[in-house]
């Protein structure tokens, strides 16, 4: 036995390592390094073993077996060398252990980190619960030196039978270890400085796919990664392997040790060298990291899919049958273990079924099975379908965006190519990297996360997130906000200097093509144009300064826009990185929102449309001539709060102008239209007592529930009331002809031809059982408005509430100059601008009103 390393062996090894380095510097071929280093270490071990084990290479009773990465011929420049010394029971164990120890000492002296294990065949067949890693490393085994017969017994008999028997335990442990590792790294591939071995989408996940294959088929030895491309399930995975192999080799050579951190500095160096990439060099670090994330994403996806498939319980026939008939399943989609399967994959050639799949996924927050994903990709490829130019596609896309699982659906749409087909503008964001110390995610992932965090607000139970959640659930069209978020950073893939303008152009193009209405397109454009405004105001302005709030209120114009912009800002900041939205920032954002909302509610009557302003406006030019005269325009718009102009689209104002024109022959004009899941009622009538109460009462008598209302009066004494209501009993939905009867009923009440009291008798609205207790709050404010007393009321929302309040106000002789009604979840929030006999309300009136409101509404 030797105690010193023969010089020839060390020299050969050192020369071999240097040659590896030179070859890599020249070719950057990581796969070649893995193969060649494995061969070099094989040669070294054989050379040393010949001296240590005098019985020679075919000595009986001992086999030196390569395990893990070494066994799989994927040995990185500074990785550990995992070795198993397989011995026969009773074969002079004392002598073998001395020889093994001597060999390991020689290797350590050469600064080779060896991880040795000594086992008999019987020991290899026994599960060690506290050393599962050892059993996993045995999945990649290879004889290096010694007793071939002993190794054959291990390789062909003992281990296959062990794996067949212990596969469920090994699998469970492997899943647990993988989950823990992913959890340590935030369950995301997106790190500013990833660890290319352990981070999701790293080397360990690649190994995981191989281990899972080995556990599923222990008799079959799969080709090794460095042996053949058939070792990979797809070209995408093969590409990821070659890229990652090169990157990790480069990191080892740079650090001179087993260091797998892709620091910012190393990203620059590897990008300069173009490591892992073909094409012209150098590339920017951002571009290089884009490639890294594409490969990491593919690996992460493959690993998760392989683990899900492996873990799927092999349930009994009845349980499987029951699961297939899950209540969510339908003729097109079956649901099992929260994944969607396709009974008829060919149906995906129909675009409605294809998009319906993602709508189903978003609505129920499910995942796609592997077979469904493959079917989607195949359907797109086979049909050559281009969704971008198909008519009426917005309705289907809208339903995807508003589902709680929208973000997951969008990610799958991107992975499968459906999103690129539907929204080509988004393609430039694929794995796009923004290199700074704040943005942790690629731009596309950041975008998906904004939508994900938005939908998660629904479930927020406490703290400041609950407040933002209430805003989200009160939105009329959450899908528009999601669409704005989807497009808000598209410009970063188009322009380096002005991404906002580029995003707006892309959104306009996409929205027009998809068939969004003019008002909706305008709203999306507004949100994208100003998506940084609120954040900038928070950072650079004093948000406790009334002037700053006033200026911001002027920018947003309406409560709805304010809510949308606030939620967009919240989602955008929240998705920069996990720590970006601090409680401090969230409170600042909330304060700016609340201050602006208050300003919008309390300043309505200060700023009114003047005739001169109207004549000079674009609005007048657009509306005049559309069967609307200038006189009619003045008759309607003069004296309306300026807020009216911001709150209504051009089409709505054109409608109101037409109705105003028709008032000459019919003083009470009524229009009812369906808008998505609610109805919008517009009433133009001469202002007189009880108009607002009558409208609200009529709707209550019909069983309708008012969710939002705006009531304005202009200088000519015409009220313009816009009321949005839901139809909980589906009266209008099931009986379309009832819409005309409702309109007629309203006209009759307003003309005094029908008795509202009679209509309401026998249909006394009873308070709905509230899921949460909502106390009634009444507050008067005689300071905020120069002309009116403000009443701010909060109460549990129920049908007939607004009628009750309006009736009390009318009974007390209050004239409603402006009314704003809104709902936040279960809570009705109403603001009234009141005057009595041409002045603000007296203190005595306030007391009586306070008492009556509490008496009629309840505590």
């Amino acid at each position, binding site marked *: 036995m030797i105690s010193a390393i023969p010089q020839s062996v060390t020299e050969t090894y050192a020369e071999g390592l240097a040659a590896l380095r030179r070859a890599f510097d020249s070719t950057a071929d990581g796969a070649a390094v893995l193969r060649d280093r494995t061969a070099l270490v094989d040669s070294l071990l054989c050379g040393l073993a010949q001296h240590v084990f005098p019985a020679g290479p075919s000595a009986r009773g001992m086999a030196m077996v390569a395990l893990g990465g070494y066994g799989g011929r994927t040995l990185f420049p500074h990785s550990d060398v995992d070795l198993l010394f397989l011995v026969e029971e009773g074969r002079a164990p004392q002598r073998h252990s001395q020889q093994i120890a001597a060999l390991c000492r020689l290797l350590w002296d050469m600064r080779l980190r060896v991880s040795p294990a000594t086992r008999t065949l019987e020991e290899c067949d026994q599960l060690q619960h506290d050393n599962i890693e050892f059993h996993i490393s045995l999945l990649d085994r290879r004889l290096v030196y010694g007793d071939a017969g002993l190794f054959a017994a291990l390789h062909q008999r003992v281990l296959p039978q062990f794996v067949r028997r212990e596969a469920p335990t090994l699998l469970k442990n492997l899943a647990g270890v993988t989950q823990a590792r992913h959890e340590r790294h935030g369950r995301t591939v997106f790190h500013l400085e990833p660890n290319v071995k352990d981070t999701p989408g790293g080397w360990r996940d690649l190994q995981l796919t191989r281990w899972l294959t080995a556990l599923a088929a222990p008799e079959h030895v799969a080709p090794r990664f460095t042996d053949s491309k058939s070792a990979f399930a797809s070209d995408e995975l093969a590409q990821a392997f070659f890229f990652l192999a090169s990157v990790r080799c480069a990191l080892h050579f740079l650090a001179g040790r087993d260091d797998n951190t892709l620091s910012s500095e190393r990203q620059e160096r590897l990008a300069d060298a173009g490591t892992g990439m073909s094409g012209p060099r150098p590339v920017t670090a951002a571009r290089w990291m884009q490639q890294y994330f594409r490969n990491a994403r593919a690996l992460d996806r493959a690993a998760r899919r392989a683990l899900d498939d492996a873990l799927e319980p092999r349930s009994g026939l009845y349980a499987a049958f029951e699961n297939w008939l899950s209540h969510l399943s339908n003729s097109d989609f079956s649901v099992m273990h929260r994944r969607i399967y396709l009974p008829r994959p060919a149906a995906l050639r129909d675009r409605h079924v294809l998009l319906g799949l993602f709508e189903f996924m978003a609505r129920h927050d499910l995942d796609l099975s592997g077979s469904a994903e493959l079917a989607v990709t195949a359907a797109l490829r086979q049909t050559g379908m281009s969704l971008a130019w198909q008519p009426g596609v917005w309705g289907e896309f809208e339903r995807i965006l508003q589902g709680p699982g929208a973000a997951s659906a969008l990610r799958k749409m991107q992975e499968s190519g459906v999103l690129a087909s539907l929204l080509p503008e988004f393609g430039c964001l694929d794995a796009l990297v923004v290199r700074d110390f704040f943005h942790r995610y690629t731009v596309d992932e950041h975008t998906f996360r904004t939508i994900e965090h938005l939908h998660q607000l629904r479930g927020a139970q406490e703290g400041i997130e609950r407040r933002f959640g209430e805003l989200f659930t009160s939105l009329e069209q959450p899908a528009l906000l999601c669409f704005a978020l989807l497009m808000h950073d598209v410009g970063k893939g188009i322009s380096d200097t002005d991404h906002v303008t580029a995003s707006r152009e892309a959104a306009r193009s996409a929205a027009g093509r998809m068939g969004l209405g003019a008002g909706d397109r305008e709203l999306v454009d507004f949100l994208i144009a100003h998506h940084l405004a609120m954040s900038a105001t*928070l*950072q*650079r*302005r*004093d*948000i*406790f300064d009334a002037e700053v709030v006033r200026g911001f209120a002027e920018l947003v114009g309406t409560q709805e826009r304010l809510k949308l912009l606030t939620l967009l800002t919240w989602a955008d900041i929240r998705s920069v990185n996990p720590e970006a939205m*601090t409680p*401090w*920032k969230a*409170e*600042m954002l909330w*304060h700016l929102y*609340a*201050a602006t*909302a*208050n300003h919008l*509610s309390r300043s309505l009557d200060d700023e009114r449309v003047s005739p001169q302003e109207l004549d000079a406006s674009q609005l007048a030019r657009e509306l005049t001539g559309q069967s609307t005269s200038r006189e009619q325009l003045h008759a309607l718009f003069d004296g309306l709060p300026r807020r009216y102009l911001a709150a209504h689209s051009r089409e709505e104002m054109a409608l109101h102008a037409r109705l105003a024109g028709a008032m000459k022959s019919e003083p009470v004009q009524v229009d009812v239209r369906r808008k998505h899941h609610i109805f919008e009622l517009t009433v133009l009538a001469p202002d007189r007592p009880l108009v607002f109460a009558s409208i609200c009462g009529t709707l209550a008598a019909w069983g309708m529930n008012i969710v939002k209302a705006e009531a304005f009066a202009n200088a000519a004494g015409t009220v313009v009331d816009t009321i949005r209501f839901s139809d909980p009993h589906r009266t209008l939905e099931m009986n379309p002809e009832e819409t005309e009867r409702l309109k007629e009923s309203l006209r009759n009440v307003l003309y005094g031809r029908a008795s509202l009291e009679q209509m309401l008798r026998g249909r006394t609205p009873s308070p709905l059982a509230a899921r949460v207790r909502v106390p009634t*709050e*009444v*507050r008067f404010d005689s300071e905020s408005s120069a002309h009116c007393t403000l009443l*701010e*009321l*909060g109460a549990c929302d129920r049908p007939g509430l607004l009628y009750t309040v309006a009736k009390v106000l009318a009974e007390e002789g209050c004239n409603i100059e402006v009314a704003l009604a809104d709902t*936040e979840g279960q809570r009705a*929030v109403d603001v009234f601008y009141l005057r009595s006999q041409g002045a603000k309300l007296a203190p005595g009136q306030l007391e009586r009103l306070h008492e009556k409101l509490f008496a009629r509404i309840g505590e």
Partner: protein
Amino acid sequence: MKKLEAIIQPSRFEAVKEALREAGIEGMTVSDVRGHGRQKGHTEVYRGREYTVDLLPKIKIEMVIAEPFVEPAIQAILRAAKTGKIGDGKIFISRIDEAIRIRNEERGENAL
């Protein structure tokens, strides 16, 4: 060596940072904090519900600087952070016994 702690309005931070840079002071630690002075905050009403804003958001800047730079730093902060309104903030000065640069173990003013 002295330590300066300045509590300022968030909206004045960029101006203060620029003023300090012009005065030749680059190193600083910045934190988001909340607090109030004698004015104690106030009550706001949003949609009929009261909520108290008793701890207002501020920015805290901390610097350790050599003696000759102390007064220029104070003047820079005063110039940039002052609005004349309640809530402008405060500056605190304290003595520092020692400073050490971790990278190369330099001590004293050389470590700043």
